[in-house]
């Protein structure tokens, strides 16, 4: 006898759901939507009741947390799911994680909890284990079964991204973790509470297995509080509408949403194939070699995607050619990649009345086994798969911006290549107290790319969360008192160029103050300056710029401050002050993305520029009026305007039209002079491939990716390589 509908086991219900979809192509086999057709008003009232339950849970429960990530950046999510695990409604917040709930519930069912520990009223289940549904260890889920008249009718779910997960590197997005054993505190699905209370051992685990136990326990209480609030509202809805209505309506909502998504695609897109790509280097050489010999190397991670918008409006994203799983931090299991990639689907077409898991029923992913997104090793390192493989979200922005552009819906284009950058930090204060933290506030203030009708915006969006927010610097300084923020600003010229340029990137600049006995910081980033934000710009615009991370040690900052002299607020100012010797530093470390654990002392400077986004269109077609505005506001400097845009300023911010027109003609002549015909270029590239003239990291990338047949076929046919070509 099971806990589900009419005493069915959850396993039986899940099997039935899978079978019905396979047979009909409709979620839960719902070819007809009776409630949608016959009484949409009541259904909307019911649905809004669930939305309100989730939103209310989020807005109240997050006050239980002490984490600025939860409290201010809003990196939390509360959800209502069916007994089978489909999310029907959610709050605002980290909405990508909606897609993880079906996998987590499926894992719990397949692990046999019904027959072993049991699933009973009052139980609390928890997990953050990537093997069982979470993208990585920082993503923590709390599930409370909702029973009505003895039947498990729903799941109330709380989720948030915690600030410290206890890995080999402090913080929550470690850019160094060769295996699951260095990822930190990972817990598979488990019953962590009964009678609506968490067990004491659960709190002890947080205290002993992470560096910020108190903060993490409060986050756990937040998740439980929110899920409990949802449970109450679900039961109210069941009482009001009836259990039969609840079961039927939740399923119809999902199928209705699936159809709505497809209708939007058919209305705004163009069927066909779209190729996108992101590359990023991962540099481990010399870092952990003696402990992890398989990690004593660098990688150029290759993340291709060919998305087919099918004739029926569904999507087939094919990831073949993706880098193989490896002993680094950026693997992720398939459900994680699907969840993170969905972050690029919500804003492009799935923004309906509520967010839910209907997306999973219209996307048919091809993720090769053995790749870093479908690893065979259950102990693979995943601490930052979300950041690196999360790039698949940006690829959807690329695909849909292009297809909407082709169809004429320019206003729906949302060209951007988001980044995930921040740092983990830990130390020992002067009084011996140990502390740690993590900061990814820059994620909440992404710039966007140039669009086909306007420039990108600075500090506008967050890939993780539709309600972007960088939080309050003062609160971060309360938790991280060693970092005095002396700059948080946009940097002139820190953008990619185009007819419509990308939004300027934002930078934080901190003066390290009174670190006590010990302090280290470790930066993570999914977008390296070595490769930029993406493998292409838009229609002739340039691809976006990557992360810039400076550590300046043993500076004269105190002297500058005491004398009231100018001090740097961003990396360009720091670089120029170093050049003219007004700023002095004993040593300077510059990282294009991730850093190792860097020891910091009193008076050091830490500067982090997240990234800056891509341009759209040929830069020499940018209107002079826009360039004059750039000069007036200081977004671009006169030398850049002249060199890249071919526009000559009169020194007072006015563009000299006739001289600039002539300069642009000269630039086009230069293009003609130094470019070659496609065929000639093709021959040159072929020769390099035949001679295998590659950097070792590039060689290794090709050798790995050509193991996958589709990518090999593409390489062989495009370059007409001999059949026995091998790397």
């Amino acid at each position, binding site marked *: 006898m099971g806990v589900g509908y009419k005493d069915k086991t959850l396993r039986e219900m899940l099997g039935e759901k899978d079978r019905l979809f396979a047979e009909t192509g409709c979620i839960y086999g719902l070819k007809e939507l009776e409630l949608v057709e016959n009484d949409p008003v009541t259904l909307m009232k019911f649905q809004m009741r669930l939305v309100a339950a989730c939103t209310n849970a989020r807005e109240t429960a997050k006050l239980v947390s002490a984490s600025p990530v939860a409290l201010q950046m809003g990196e939390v999510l509360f959800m209502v799911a069916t007994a089978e695990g489909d999310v029907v409604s959610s709050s605002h917040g980290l909405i990508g994680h909606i897609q993880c709930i079906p996998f987590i519930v499926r894992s719990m069912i397949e692990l046999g909890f019904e027959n072993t520990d049991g699933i009973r009223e009052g139980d609390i289940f928890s997990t953050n284990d990537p093997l069982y549904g979470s993208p990585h260890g920082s993503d923590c889920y709390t599930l409370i079964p909702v029973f009505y008249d003895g039947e498990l009718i729903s799941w109330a779910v709380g989720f948030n991204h915690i600030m410290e997960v206890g890995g080999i590197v402090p913080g929550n997005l470690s850019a160094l973790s060769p295996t699951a054993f260095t990822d930190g505190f990972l817990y598979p699905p488990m019953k962590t509470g009964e009678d609506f209370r968490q067990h004491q051992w659960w709190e002890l685990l947080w205290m002993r297995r992470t560096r910020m136990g108190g903060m993490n326990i409060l986050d756990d209480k937040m998740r439980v509080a929110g899920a409990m609030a949802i449970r109450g509202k679900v039961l109210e809805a069941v009482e009001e509408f009836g259990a039969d209505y609840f079961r039927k309506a939740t399923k119809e909502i999902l199928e209705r949403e699936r159809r709505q998504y497809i209708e939007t695609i058919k209305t705004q897109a163009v069927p066909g194939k779209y190729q996108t790509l992101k590359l990023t280097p991962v540099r481990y050489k010399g870092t952990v070699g003696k402990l992890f010999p398989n990690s004593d190397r660098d990688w150029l991670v290759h993340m291709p995607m060919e998305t087919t918008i099918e*004739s029926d409006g569904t999507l087939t994203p094919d990831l073949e050619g993706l880098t193989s799983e490896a002993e680094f931090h950026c693997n992720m299991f398939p459900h994680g990649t699907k969840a993170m990639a969905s972050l690029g689907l919500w804003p492009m077409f799935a923004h309906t009345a509520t967010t839910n898991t209907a997306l999973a029923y219209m996307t048919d992913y091809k993720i090769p086994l053995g790749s870093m997104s479908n690893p065979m090793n259950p102990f693979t390192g995943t601490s930052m798969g979300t950041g690196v493989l999360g790039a698949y979200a940006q690829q959807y922005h690329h695909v849909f911006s292009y297809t909407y552009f082709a169809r004429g819906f320019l206003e*729906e284009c949302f060209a951007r290549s988001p980044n995930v950058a921040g740092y983990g930090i830990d130390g020992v204060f002067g009084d011996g107290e140990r502390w740690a933290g993590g900061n990814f506030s820059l994620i909440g203030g992404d710039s966007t790319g140039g669009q*086909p009708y306007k420039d990108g915006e600075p500090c506008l969006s967050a890939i993780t969360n539709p309600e972007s927010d960088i939080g309050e610097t003062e609160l971060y300084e309360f938790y991280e008192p060693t970092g005095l923020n002396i700059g948080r600003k946009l940097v002139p010229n*820190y953008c990619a160029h185009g007819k419509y340029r990308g939004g300027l990137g934002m930078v934080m600049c901190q003066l390290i103050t009174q670190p006590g006995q010990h302090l280290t910081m470790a930066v993570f980033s999914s977008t390296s300056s070595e490769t930029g934000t993406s493998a292409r710009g838009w229609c002739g615009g340039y691809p976006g710029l990557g992360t810039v991370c400076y550590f300046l040690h043993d500076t004269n900052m105190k002297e500058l401050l005491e004398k009231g002299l100018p001090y740097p607020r961003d990396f360009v100012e720091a670089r120029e002050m170093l050049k003219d010797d007004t700023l002095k530093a004993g040593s300077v470390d510059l990282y294009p993305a991730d850093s190792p654990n860097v020891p910091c002392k009193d008076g050091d400077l830490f500067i982090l520029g997240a990234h800056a986004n891509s341009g759209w269109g040929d830069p020499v077609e940018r209107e002079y009026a826009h360039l004059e505005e750039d000069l007036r506001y200081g977004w671009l400097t006169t030398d850049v305007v002249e060199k890249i845009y071919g526009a000559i300023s009169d020194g007072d911010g006015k563009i000299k039209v006739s001289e600039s027109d002539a300069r642009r003609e000269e630039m*086009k002549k230069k*293009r003609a002079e130094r*470019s070659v*015909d*496609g065929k000639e270029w093709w021959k040159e590239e072929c020769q390099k491939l035949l001679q295998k003239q590659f950097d070792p990291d590039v060689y290794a990338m090709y050798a790995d990716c050509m193991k996958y047949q589709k990518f090999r076929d593409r390489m062989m046919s495009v370059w007409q390589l001999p059949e026995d070509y091998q790397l």
Partner: protein
Amino acid sequence: MRQAEIASKDKIEALVEGKLPDHDVKELIRLAPKDKDRFWKYLEILQSKVPWKDKILLRISDHLFIVASEGGGRVVKCDCGHEFDDYRVNWKFNARVYVRRTREEMAEVISVEESILNPNIVEMREFYCPGCFAQLAVEVVPVGYPPLFEIFPDLDTFYRDWLGAPLDNEDPGWYQEKTAELTSQWSKEG
């Protein structure tokens, strides 16, 4: 009526030209449902801006269009009038190509020195129209990487099933990529 006003042809034309005020853009974004005839308005606007008569079937880049050519083909054409090839061949192979391979070459177009790409692992390819030398695309990829085929539309399905206006010369072959045929020919030519 409201929809017709928000998404009028004049406003779509202003949007295409980058002249539509923010308020009107927001109204377009909020428009639900979208105007069903958007594509046809878009084509009319685009067609009025090019100096040639070939019928535009789809816009695939700022300057590039798939057009129905006189002989019954479907080719990629620049607004300047330069014709590339059959749209089933990635047009980048028929463009003019300039590759930035050094930090100095990249610094000409990357305006923050810390963000200059690593030339050991990637090159920056610029693709120009051989007719007007407009910059049509930029790629940052390792040497030897196949050029990205950014959009390869299924035109017959689009026109027939999604727009309800099938094209004259429908054929399943229009959705078969032909880039390899071009490179195979080049290979034979030596």
